[in-house]
């Protein structure tokens, strides 16, 4: 267990290093440069500034400086926002995105398992058809459409009620969180529902369920003890990659609902060519994803005894 975890962490560090290197060189090949401003600058001042920030050094030296800072945990200073280091921006904004993302993932996982199990129980009956229709909608309609529609819906509901039941946008309370999290988790929930349904159907026809019936166990016990745990395994497997989908999907939802999260900031940084913020956020998201995938693998080993973590 411990050797496995340590091995995974080392692999994770190497992955993050790859991401950081790729980001560095990709940013370097982007046209334009950080000192290109609307204010005219004499060549002397420009040369002085480049010397100050090491921009006149060979690429490899710049890379070493960047990596050294990265290892120290210093992601640099924003080129656009005054007096803000990238570390400050992330520590200020990321919790907002994280709360939203975790809630979305939670809703998606719980919803996916419940809806998937229901469709399997009512296979080829009306509830199955209705849920599967909604699932197709959830997968195919992009999140900005769902986000905008849900805002429209909220406006109408609030108008009908004569007061603000649920805020349409913004940040601050739990109520602000609910609808964005639901919208953000929707496509993942739809995907997990389909996965859970097929996995449940496969398990229903398996030999060990027949054994459980032959043992005379009540249906509820067969469902909870024998079907659910085995059917949930594939769902847990995809949770790791789904974290990536939810965090990237977060950009759109954060903008539509005016949530001050990191995703929205990231998109703005790209638009404004805020070099350090782009690189820092990319590396941070990469590291976050790696951590989530390792976490899911460890959980998987706990749920499925056949997975030997030592190997």
């Amino acid at each position, binding site marked *: 267990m411990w050797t496995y975890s340590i091995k995974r962490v080392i692999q994770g560090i190497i992955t993050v290093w790859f991401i950081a290197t790729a980001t560095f060189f990709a940013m370097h090949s982007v046209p334009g440069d950080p000192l290109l401003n609307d204010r005219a600058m004499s060549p002397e001042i420009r040369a002085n500034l480049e010397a100050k920030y090491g921009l006149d050094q060979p690429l490899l030296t710049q890379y070493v400086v960047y990596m050294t800072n990265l290892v120290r945990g210093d992601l640099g200073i924003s080129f656009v926002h005054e007096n803000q280091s990238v570390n400050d921006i992330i520590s200020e904004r990321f919790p907002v995105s994280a709360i939203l993302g975790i809630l979305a993932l939670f809703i998606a996982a719980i919803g996916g398992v419940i809806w998937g199990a229901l469709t399997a129980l009512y296979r080829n009956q009306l509830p199955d058809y209705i849920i599967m229709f909604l699932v197709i909608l959830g997968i195919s309609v992009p999140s900005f459409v769902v986000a905008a529609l849900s805002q429209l819906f909220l406006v109408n509901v609030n108008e009908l009620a004569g007061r603000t039941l649920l805020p349409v946008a913004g940040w601050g309370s739990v109520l602000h969180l609910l609808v964005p999290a639901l919208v953000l988790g929707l496509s993942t929930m739809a995907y997990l529902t389909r996965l859970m349904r097929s996995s449940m159907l496969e398990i229903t026809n398996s030999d060990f369920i*027949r054994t*459980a019936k032959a*043992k005379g166990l009540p249906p509820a016990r067969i469902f909870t*003890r024998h079907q659910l*745990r*085995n059917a949930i395994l594939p769902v847990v497997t995809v949770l790791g990659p789904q974290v990536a989908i939810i965090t990237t999907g977060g950009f759109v939802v954060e903008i539509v609902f005016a949530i001050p999260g990191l995703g929205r900031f990231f998109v703005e940084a790209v638009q404004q060519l805020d070099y350090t913020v782009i690189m820092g956020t990319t590396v941070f998201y990469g590291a976050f994803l790696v951590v989530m995938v390792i976490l899911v693998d460890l959980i998987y080993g706990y749920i*499925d005894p*056949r997975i030997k973590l030592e190997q």
Partner: protein
Amino acid sequence: MSASSKQQKLLEVENLAVEFDTYGGVVKAVRGVDFTVDQGETLAIVGESGCGKSVTVQSIMGLIPMPPGRITEGSARLRGHEVLGRNAIDGKDIRGSEIGMIFQDPMTSLNPTMTIGDQIAEPLQVHRGYSYQGAFKEAVNLLEMSKIPEAAKRAKQYPFEFSGGMLQRAMIAMALSCKPSILIADEPTTALDVTIQAQILDLMQDLQKETGMAIILITHDLGVVARMADEVAVMYAGKVVEHGTVDDVFYRPAHPYTVGLKDAMPNNDRELQHELKPIEGSPPDLFSPPVGCGYCPRCPHAMNICGNRHPIDYFLGDHHFSRCWLHAEQVTEKPESLYVREHN
């Protein structure tokens, strides 16, 4: 069944018929099966794949998925109480409590994410009201009874840590946990290699002697039948074509299909060795079951009547009967291979 056995049998199955709705139409998988099983006795049901032997026992256990399955006719009585379509008789659950069942492939018949001990303990908790701790302790005893070494340690392991033979032992322990009066074994040794087969069969026989349970053994292996069975029912195309004691069926086969099965079986005894003869052709399509005898198209002795009318029961002994027109009095020249009753 014959009128001579007036006293109540442990299990009496009468005229059982089961159908399945499929996209291709209605499959009549079982078309009127009857047999009885006595306390402490082993009945073997033999026949080739698709003859309805598994469906027969699964309908007794209530394991037929309905729909698409349907029991159209017949009854199965345990100590005189109807079990078809019921979950309990006399306040006792049938499945797992009155009748235990083991299956063909032990590797897939156990829940992969639950410990062996927990799985054996389950019926005790559900049917006998054991606490979890009590049931688990009893599960360890049952594993010991099934001759699994280091039972206490093994009970905490998962199915993937067991070999096939060990898993079948665990299945037996599980099926017998509530001391059922009948154990149904649906091809229990088909998926195991030969040495393990013998061990599993020995174990079943030992446990039968200890508990006095009846065993219904489904198999297509005549070697297993010879070793285990008291009585044999030979099934073909959803019907029992011959029924008798194991000696009747092996030494006095009275149906051409039984003879065919015997000719297709290898023999270790030098004097009895013969060339293996396959039964040509394939079983009839049960979407449109044959009007007459199902074996007619493959039967080397088929007569005109065989394709048109169902044979009636011809008794050749108290328990021995065959459903074949060759036993009719009008047939003067009977095949040599067939056992016939001498007319006095």
